[in-house]
């Protein structure tokens, strides 16, 4: 059953009639986890649960959940959107499912102890390869390589953050080539 629409929703709906300026990320975030109907410039309607809205292109990513667990995801391009109406405000009904979509095996949860072991293991490997690596971060959860690159938990190749593409590529390759137990 669709939850009754509040006056805030009416405001959301009417606020979105003119498509001239870029809206704030907070505005788009308020749609996430809700079921909406998006009308596009060609007159079509796209219904689904909002996984996210790209703040750059304002494209809406919708998920359709079918009875037989078949899931379809649809992205409606920002430039084609004419309007959005909230159909179901219940953000909890599909929140967990939406959060777990597109999540890779890398994002699995590790225990604190495991994370510490992984961190030290990787630190040893990087030091073995003559890289200036330091433990940093508020709780010592980060590994930083001379301010150029930071590695977050769970310390996989995908956990690296850097503004330098070349360094990023090299470190990622190095992490991938790490043997499973560093002696």
């Amino acid at each position, binding site marked *: 059953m669709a939850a009754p629409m509040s006056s805030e929703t009416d405001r959301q709906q009417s606020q979105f009639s003119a498509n001239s300026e870029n809206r*704030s*990320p*907070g505005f*788009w*975030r308020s749609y*996430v986890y809700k079921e909406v109907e998006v009308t*596009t*410039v*060609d007159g*079509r309607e*796209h219904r689904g649960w909002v*996984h*996210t*809205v*790209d*703040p*750059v*292109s304002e*494209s809406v*990513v919708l998920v359709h959940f079918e009875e*037989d*667990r*078949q*899931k*379809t*995801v*649809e*992205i*409606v*391009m920002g*430039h*084609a959107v004419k309007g959005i109406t909230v159909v179901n405000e219940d953000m909890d009904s599909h929140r967990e499912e939406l959060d*777990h*979509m*597109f*999540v*890779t*095996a890398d994002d699995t949860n590790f225990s604190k102890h495991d994370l510490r072991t992984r961190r030290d293991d990787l630190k040893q490997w990087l030091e073995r390869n003559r890289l200036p690596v330091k433990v940093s971060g508020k709780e010592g959860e980060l590994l930083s390589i001379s301010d150029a690159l930071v590695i977050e938990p769970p310390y996989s190749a995908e956990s690296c953050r850097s503004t330098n593409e070349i360094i990023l590529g090299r470190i990622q390759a190095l992490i991938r080539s790490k043997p499973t137990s560093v002696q």
Partner: protein
Amino acid sequence: MEDGVDDKTQNNDILQSTSTTNDDRLSQEQEDRSFLRERFLHFLKGIQGKRTHFKMYEKTEVDATFQLSDIDGQNFLVSDLETPMGTQPQAMLRCADIISCSVDIGTGEHKM
């Protein structure tokens, strides 16, 4: 005059609280922005290699395997694009021409 001084202090307080509120607002905006963008990037990675149905302007609809988006989100790189003239092994679709894309992601948890 005493009133004038009080007004000035009040104004300064207002300016102070406004700039703090602005900082809070900006930081919240950034947090919202990264929340949304990160999910979007995961989505793009998640549909990579999947058969996608593209609805375009002028009632055109095509099927292709989604590969990549360019950094600006202006173009999508696809493979095995089905056209009336046959299947194109590699092609680039302009995002400006696309209205929506749908992908079947199957049952159960998505694992890469």
